[in-house]
């Protein structure tokens, strides 16, 4: 037996760090560990820019935030979860303020707020346009205070270990040595973030490969609402670097090749000179991304070296405002597009940004598998439904990170026994599986980068902003073919120390699991709702699909099932913006 902890957290981003602090604060005698494939400050939370929503100002109300979130979700969010989220978000945000997060301030010293898409009131806290970066580093540095936290930096989890119907630990590859270790734990929390890398154009870092989603899926936990993939309307081609929604909140406008504010043609107008809440550029992300596709079809976009773009115009904001409120946008434009947004138009297009779906959990972060919890983007509680409103994901990882930490700590205190010999046997099996794979890879014939290109192109073509049955069926077939091909992957690298190619191959298998869950969930949902737009089923169908999709792993394609959405006080209504 090598390692044993009360609570083991997989992933050291915002949700994982918040969960670890929650465990440490609950009882300093609880032994908590964070295992992460990267150093925690490299986690993708670092890339969030615009802000984090929570009700704090006297002109705002909890109900208003709840209603905006539910409408933004196209009524697919569980309303009990949204209520918990909105109620607890302010306390979590204040806690982060007390831990030192450098929030931007109003002149009187209170935290400043800015408007965000789909919200009726300005309630988004921000630290200039580096909000995720500051939140992540505040959480990381605060977590360093707690002696009860053990860190496994750069360990890659390959499998969840289930014994007696309970999750009792993981196997993890120590990248520095290439050794596979067993880490036993009384409770495990998955906080591994999103899976944007299953698409070719994404704001997501290279590390966002859906690992936790796939780990849970393989352990028998369903993935919920995976068909809902958020495109952010303003990514910088060709890299997908994010130009934050805050650029529009500060007054930036979207124009087509004729300089026309086209959003007014898609139920988001009328066009007025200054940003209006829940209208035009301040509409929700799904609507803005869909409008872009229509503009392409009408031939009103600009042809760029990397495909069609529209323009984000910040010129009228002036250099001073851009420097103060959007310094990172300016930095990114200068460095990566060679343009100054104070004087030039920014070429943008929709890029994959966020997975609304994820590991099925309840409001405490518990999955259906006892001992296994999940929080953050890899989880689906669900508060985001068919479309997440911008600035809800950062408070989500605080609220549900803390809740998952508390629930996992309680679970670990109640379930002390671990079946260590059985776990060791499972770990040996996993070691043999990986060794076999590794040996086979020496004689493989498929190049990993080729398979990855096929995967991402398949997702973009079949499971993009607009989908239909024929395209989805073709995508499912290609993914099944990739499943067979990926057993023949060749590896150039025979070594153990930091074999990043082996890690990429293991990540590719995770990506494939997640991609199949997305494609099959999308094929089964015969309606259009939020980010899931079926050209062959253009209407929302509450009679058949006011339900969460559950994708269960099988030996072949996933088995799809449904569960009713929790409706408390807000019956489904038409989603209206603009006006």
């Amino acid at each position: 037996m090598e390692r044993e902890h009360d609570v083991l957290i997989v992933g050291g981003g915002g949700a994982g760090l918040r969960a670890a602090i929650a465990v440490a604060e609950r009882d300093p005698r609880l032994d908590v560990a964070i295992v992460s494939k990267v150093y925690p400050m490299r986690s993708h939370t670092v890339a969030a820019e615009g802000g984090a929503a929570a009700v704090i100002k006297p002109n705002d109300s909890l109900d208003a935030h709840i209603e905006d979130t539910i409408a933004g979700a196209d009524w697919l969010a569980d309303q009990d979860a949204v209520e918990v989220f909105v109620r607890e978000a302010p306390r979590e945000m204040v806690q982060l303020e007390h831990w030192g997060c450098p929030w931007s301030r109003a002149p009187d010293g209170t935290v400043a707020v800015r408007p965000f898409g789909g919200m009726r009131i300005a309630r988004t806290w921000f630290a200039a346009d580096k909000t995720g970066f500051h939140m992540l580093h505040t959480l990381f540095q605060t977590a360093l205070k707690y002696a009860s936290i053990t860190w496994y930096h750069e360990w890659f989890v390959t499998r969840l270990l289930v014994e007696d119907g309970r999750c009792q630990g993981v196997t993890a590859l120590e990248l520095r040595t290439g050794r596979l270790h067993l880490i036993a734990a009384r409770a495990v929390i998955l906080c591994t973030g999103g899976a944007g890398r299953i698409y070719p154009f994404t704001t997501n870092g290279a590390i966002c490969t859906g690992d936790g989603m796939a780990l849970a899926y393989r352990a028998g936990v369903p993935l919920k609402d995976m068909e809902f993939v958020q495109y952010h309307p303003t990514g910088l081609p060709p890299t997908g670097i994010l130009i934050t929604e805050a650029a529009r909140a500060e007054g930036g406008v979207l124009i087509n090749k004729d300089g026309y504010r086209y959003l007014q043609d898609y139920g988001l107008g009328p066009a007025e000179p200054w940003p209006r809440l829940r209208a035009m550029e301040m509409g929700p992300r799904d609507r803005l991304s869909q409008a872009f596709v229509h503009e392409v079809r009408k031939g009103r976009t600009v042809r760029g070296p990397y495909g069609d773009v529209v323009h984000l115009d910040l010129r009228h904001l002036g250099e001073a405002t851009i420097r103060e409120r959007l310094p990172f946008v300016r930095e990114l434009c200068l460095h990566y597009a060679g343009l100054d947004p104070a004087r030039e138009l920014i070429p943008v297009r929709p890029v994959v940004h966020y997975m609304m779906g994820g590991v099925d959990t309840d409001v405490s972060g518990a999955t259906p598998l006892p001992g296994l919890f999940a929080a953050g983007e890899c989880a689906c509680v669900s508060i985001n439904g068919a479309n997440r409103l911008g600035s809800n994901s950062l408070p989500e990882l605080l609220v549900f990170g803390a809740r998952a930490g508390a629930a996992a700590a309680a679970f670990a205190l109640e379930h002390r026994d671990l079946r260590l010999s059985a776990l060791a046997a499972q770990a040996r099996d996993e070691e043999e599986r990986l060794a076999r794979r590794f040996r086979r890879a020496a004689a493989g014939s498929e190049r990993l980068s080729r398979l990855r290109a096929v995967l991402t192109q398949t997702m973009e073509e079949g499971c993009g902003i607009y989908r239909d049955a024929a395209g989805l069926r073709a995508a499912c077939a290609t993914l099944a073919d990739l499943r067979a091909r990926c057993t023949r992957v060749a590896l150039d690298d025979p070594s153990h120390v930091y074999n990043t190619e082996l890690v990429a191959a293991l990540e590719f298998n995770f990506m494939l699991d997640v991609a199949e869950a997305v494609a099959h969930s999308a094929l089964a949902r015969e309606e259009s709702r939020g980010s899931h737009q079926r050209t062959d089923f253009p209407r929302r169908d509450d009679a058949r699909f006011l339900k969460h999709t559950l994708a269960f792993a099988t030996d072949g394609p996933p088995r799809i099932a449904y569960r009713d959405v929790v409706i408390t006080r807000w019956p489904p209504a038409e989603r209206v913006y603009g006006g």
Partner: protein
Amino acid sequence: MAEPTITLEVWRYHPEQEAAPRFQPYQVPYRPDWVVLDALNYIKDHLDGSVAYRWSCRMGVCGSCGMTINGVPRLSCAAFLKEYYPRPVRVEPLANFPVERDLIVDLTDFLEKLPAVRPWIIRRDAGPPDAEFRQTPEELETYRQFSMCINCLLCYAACPVYALEPRFLGPAALALAARYTLDSRDQGRAERHPVVAGPDGVWDCTLVGECTTVCPKDVDPAGAIQRLKLASALAWLRDVVLPWGRR
């Protein structure tokens, strides 16, 4: 017409197979909008999957991809090929750190030093319940710059003091000490002082300022160290020379 190419000379070291490091040249397509990281990814995808390096966000904020590029510590996601073309680009691991393999260095030393400067808010009281601490934009401005550090460690690779004296806490850790000490919400100056002004702290710094030159986020660690030296000198003056002046 054939696509133009550029040569990347990549520092290779596999501890399991090789006693000594070597440079391996690779020809990659030259595209003016590519950064060095794109070229490395091209190599890994198409030419040689065994080249090992760290990267993630490709937008200069995760801090993973620091390397020595033509002798200068840089983020490889922010170093454009067009800055070097048509000359070759030499890519090496960050200096002053033990190399694990290829371009991957061991960061353990920094991660062990970081908690020593107590990079978190220290308070004697809990703060206002259910409300934020008030902090004016001017108070925020006093430490804002020092809060921008992404821990990419280019500053350690550039620091001649750290090269000679590995016990030196170093620019990024000290910038974070300044960041919290200057924060109006923090009351931990006295607790950080013995470490910051101690034998491995700010007085080791010889003010070369290379850390500030290479910092991709304009944190100005050298300026942070100067601020801490001044604060440390004032504290010494207050405590030793004018002990009756203590509050």
